[in-house]
């Protein structure tokens, strides 16, 4: 029965994942060669994630909690495909989009319009999809007539609003959010929150990293706490927040 298995199938499967960063001490052929001659180590390693198992189902909104350096961004990058795990498996079903550092693909010398097209394409949209969504993107960003101005003349608020608006209007099944919801001024934040709620209501899968615990507990039903690369709690979001507060770095 494909129908029921479809409905039951998870969106993200993370199994036994380990991510090891290699910190290189050499940055040129010469240094590497000298280190090799002297039998010195050219790199040391650092386990950013270790033995991680997480399954996220369809329509779930999961908050990822943990102190700085615990490996949250690394985990999201593994799901988006920017990084690959050194052990274990990461699998996703459907289109993945990331609100990870919005505006990474913006070019200051291009107009807002050009940047919308470029960035939406970078985020995986086709020309037809962008054409269809363009007005909505501009409307949401409140950029108005400045859309044909070069982006370098934008205020930082305008820039962030446009970048965020592009990202949130892409087509996706899974949305990864890494500490970007605190953008823009209060009214715009309000609007973003409403949009996020709308996404949750429409059964999109959300994986959110934020320091705003109030917002996490409001949006998510499930919370996962990561400490030094290991999962220490996975369950209802309020208990997760309590677990985070109880844990020390």
């Amino acid at each position, binding site marked *: *029965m494909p129908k029921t298995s479809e409905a039951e*199938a998870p969106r993200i499967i993370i199994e036994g994942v380990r991510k090891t960063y290699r910190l290189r001490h050499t940055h*040129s052929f010469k240094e590497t060669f000298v280190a090799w001659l002297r039998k010195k180590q050219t790199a040391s390693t650092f386990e950013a994630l270790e033995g991680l198992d997480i*399954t996220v189902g369809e329509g779930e909104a999961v908050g990822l909690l943990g102190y700085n350096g615990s490996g949250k961004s690394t985990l999201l990058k593994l799901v*988006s495909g920017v990084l690959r795990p050194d052990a274990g498996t990461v699998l*996703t*079903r459907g289109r993945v989009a990331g609100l*990870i550092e919005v505006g*990474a693909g913006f070019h200051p010398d291009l107009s807002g319009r050009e940047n919308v097209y470029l960035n939406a394409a970078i985020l995986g949209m086709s020309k037809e999809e962008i054409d269809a969504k363009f007005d909505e993107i501009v409307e949401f960003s409140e950029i108005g007539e400045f859309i044909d101005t070069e982006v370098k003349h934008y205020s930082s608020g305008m820039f962030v609003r446009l970048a965020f608006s592009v990202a949130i209007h892409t087509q996706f099944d899974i949305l990864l959010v890494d500490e970007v919801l605190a953008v823009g001024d209060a009214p715009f934040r309000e609007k973003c929150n409403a949009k996020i709620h709308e996404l949750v209501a429409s059964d999109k899968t959300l994986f959110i990293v934020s320091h705003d615990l109030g917002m996490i507990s409001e949006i998510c039903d499930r919370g996962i706490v990561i400490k030094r690369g290991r999962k220490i709690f996975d369950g209802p979001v309020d208990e997760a927040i309590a677990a985070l507060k109880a844990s020390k770095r």
Partner: protein
Amino acid sequence: MPEAFRIDGMSQYGLPDRSAFAVPGVGRGVLDVFSYRYLLRLLVRKGILTRYHGSVLGWAWSYVKPAAQFLIYYLVMGVFLNLNRGIDAFPVYLFSGIVVVNLFNEAFGNATKSIVNNKALVKKIYLPRELFPIADVFIAFVHFLPQLSILIVVCLVVGWVPTVLHLAGALLAMLIVLLLATGLGMLFGSVNVSFRDSQNLVELILLFATWTSPVLYSFTMVRDKVPTWLFDLYMANPLTAAVELFHSAFWYPTIAGPAERPENLWGLAGLALAISIVTLLVGQFVFRRLEGRFAQDL
């Protein structure tokens, strides 16, 4: 049978029916670029729009630079060193070779730096990373077009009547150069992420490129001076074949007297194309081996 597992309750989701799942961050290399055609087009457009941004002359620079380069080579090689005595219509000879090497240098040089230049994107969003060097090669090709059009105009003025064979040769030359530059660009560009020596090494290679192919002199001068094996090696350089294809297409038909041409130029061109394709495959192979580290090492 996944269903059985579900009934047993062994797994919440029914074990390994994973056909609907994808492994994030694993692409099909250069082939992926075809499914990202639209993005490739926008990246090329961005490169072209922002190239001369904020300059008054703008695209005129694409004409000024090769003209200045041509003038210097013509004065030094042709007038001061008297090379033009041995070569008919030396200015046309010179220019038709220079544009080929310029295309190669621009494409290879930019492709080498493309991953590092697109750091912000590579670190944050997954895209087939081959897009960046390939977009740079396309951009180099667009900047080659003004030079090519000057060459064509000059040739037409001095009485060039193009034939299908000339045009086929010129197209083949461009294909050889573009494939070679893409392959080498991916190779040195992926190494460049960890070792910036790579881009310095490439600058050195580019310095040699003008002199190790018959751009400023005739191939006969090499043939008469060096041992046969070295000359064979010289002629096996894909750039030599590309430059000679351009000479045969643009310069040779415009001169009055006879001039020596390399034996079996089409054979050389075939070899050059094969070498370029192998280079592309090697470049792609190394690129894929190193790609997994791009985002964390940048």
